[in-house]
């Protein structure tokens, strides 16, 4: 069963949302994935860019009821 973790960052603005994702990822093992709920498509795209810049892989971005969710995979 794959490692599944989730954090809700709705209401958390940049850069704190990015910081919290990094801290959460730091605690996970390699290959683990983290699902993150964010404020909306804009936040999701911004955070995805930052994560990919720093070598993380974002495998899914989807919008759901006004919020957005991304799945980040730790290298």
């Amino acid at each position, binding site marked *: 069963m794959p490692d599944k973790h989730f954090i809700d960052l709705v209401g958390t603005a940049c850069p704190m949302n990015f910081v919290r994702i990094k801290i959460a990822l730091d605690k996970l093992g390699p290959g683990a994935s983290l699902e993150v709920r964010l404020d909306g498509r804009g936040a999701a795209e911004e955070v995805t860019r930052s994560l990919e*810049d720093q070598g993380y892989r974002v495998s899914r971005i989807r919008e759901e009821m006004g919020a957005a969710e991304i799945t980040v995979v730790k290298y």
Partner: protein
Amino acid sequence: MDLSEEKIERYSRNIVLAEIGPQGQERIRRGKVLIVGAGGLGSPAALYLAAAGIGVLGLIDSDKVELSNLQRQILHDTRSLGEAKTRSAGRRIRALNPDVAVRTFQERFSVDNALSLVREFDFVIDGSDNFATKFLVNDACVLAGKPFSHAGVLGFRGQVLTVDPSRADSPCLRCLLPEPPGRAETPDCSRSGVLGALTGILGSIQALETLKFLTGAGELLCGRLLTVDALKLTFRTVAVRRNPDCPLCSGKKRITALDQALYV
């Protein structure tokens, strides 16, 4: 490593950086740095290290705060006049960041305490204002195998070099200058002027080098002497090498212990 909410917020701008991140922040938190001299260079260095979340900050200075210091020694303020610099510094640092464990030494950095002091820290910053002390810092750190940042500033010029005795490509101060210049040749700041902002630039670079050393980020100024001309605001990097005849760090070393006679 568990960061409290407050620490996540406080250090967020460190953690965002790819080269730092949560692990880098933990290394900074575990870092122990000694600053020799709580003056023009030591002030910005201490403030930026404290701001970044350094774990232990040691400050050694035997002086009291004087009015002419306030032109550049931004750790202190008008309230501190007449007070021991270490006490004034401790107060300011704790106000900026109470996470930092401040260890103060209200005494001169001398042949009697230099070795035992540097051994307690991971990195040393030379914030002194005279060559005798600069050479003492150099010698103590090389003998103890401790990395340190050398810097000097006078008039509109400054220089900074990082020394890591464990690296073959890292010359020490004596590789460049086998002996301290004679007293007559080098006025210290009390006889020559210097703009506070220039000491700010150099002390800040020293803090940067410290943080880079602790986190492994980037490349250090080992083997590279950075010089600043503040009038033109030109920065030059001079490649410098270990001197195979260095009296301290080469195979031909003549200096194997700290001797007061070396620092007059």
